[in-house]
């Protein structure tokens, strides 16, 4: 039963293996270049196991000690997990002792696979999801540890290597933006089609930039988080009512295309 589930899970995780080894290694290498022993990326990648937050934690460790701020930052950066959890309430049922691990190891990639892939009938779902989660974690921890170790052997001017984090988030932003184009059409502003996801992304960018200017680099995160949530709460009615219009607009467009 176990080997069957492992064999079913492995192919889905291979693309993630490449990505996790590369990113994990950059992360481990970055930490080593900032003077941390390889045990830091190894243990952090294992225990935190949330890529974005691990990169952010490097910054936290290099600035003044402020655990409360670190806690709120972790909550906000990882807030998306709350919603992964809500989506997985049903799927993770009846998985027994594996359930706490499935929840603990629920990174973006494991969530995506476990949420979208239905394993073949003769494969145990619990074990399938368990192996998806475990393999992904192995790739990530291995990458981070390897990167940290390579940092001892390979020496070159690492000035600017921390930009790998910026690059990661910029690419994630573009990917999200591009995927959103296939969404329902929200509005056409001067020929540019914006969907609710585009607007959400812009709200995040705009609120953060505004708070950065007002509060400065040290204190902007918490106000930015608050402003983002407030903005979403304020526009909720319009978002939801427009969603209906959006559907009718979309149907109309589809009808026109068919004609």
């Amino acid at each position: 039963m176990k080997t069957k589930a492992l064999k079913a899970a492995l192919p889905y995780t291979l693309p993630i293996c490449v990505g996790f080894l590369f990113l994990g290694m950059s992360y481990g290498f970055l930490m080593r270049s900032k003077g941390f022993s390889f045990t830091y990326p190894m243990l952090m990648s294992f225990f935190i196991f949330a890529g974005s937050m691990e990169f952010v934690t490097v910054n936290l460790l290099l600035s003044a000690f402020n655990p409360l701020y670190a806690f709120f930052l972790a909550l906000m950066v990882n807030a998306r997990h709350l919603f992964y959890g809500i989506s997985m309430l049903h799927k993770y049922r009846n998985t027994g002792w594996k359930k706490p691990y499935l929840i603990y190891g629920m990174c973006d990639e494991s969530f995506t696979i476990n949420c979208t892939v239905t394993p073949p009938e003769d494969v145990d779902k619990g074990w399938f999801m368990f192996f998806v989660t475990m393999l992904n974690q192995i790739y990530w921890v291995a990458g981070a540890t390897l990167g940290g170790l390579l940092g001892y052997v390979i020496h070159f001017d690492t000035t600017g290597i921390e930009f790998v984090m910026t690059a990661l988030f910029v690419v994630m932003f573009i990917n999200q933006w591009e995927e959103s184009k296939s969404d329902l059409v929200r509005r056409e502003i001067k020929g540019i089609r914006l969907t609710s996801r585009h607007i959400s992304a812009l709200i995040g960018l705009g609120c953060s930039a505004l708070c950065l200017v007002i509060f400065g680099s040290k204190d902007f995160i918490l106000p930015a988080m608050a402003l983002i949530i407030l903005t979403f709460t304020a526009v909720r009615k319009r978002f939801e009512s427009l969603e209906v219009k959006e559907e009718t607009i979309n149907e109309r467009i589809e009808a026109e295309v068919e004609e």
Partner: protein
Amino acid sequence: MTTVQSIITIAVVVLGTLTTRFLPFLIFPENKKPPKYITYLGAVLPFAVIGLLVVFCLKEAVFTKLHGLPEAIAILFIVLLHKWKKNTLLSIAGGTILYMVLVQTVFA
């Protein structure tokens, strides 16, 4: 930061991360439907958080004497490279290498 402070910081981050992962399962056991406001935030927040993280990465650069010029060049490069090749890892690697070259030579 001392080693103890580092360990506390990491522990707190672990705790925060665990909270976001376990909370839904603790609040909504077995089929109890979450309120609409929560599912709404669930739909929109992930997109906003990436924007927040991009700004977070640039928070120091904006206030330096170059006002984030090397960052802007590298980001523009990433956008173009990504539009062209659509390869996530290539875009990350390419952008990072260009940025490192920029800050080590042109803007050194």
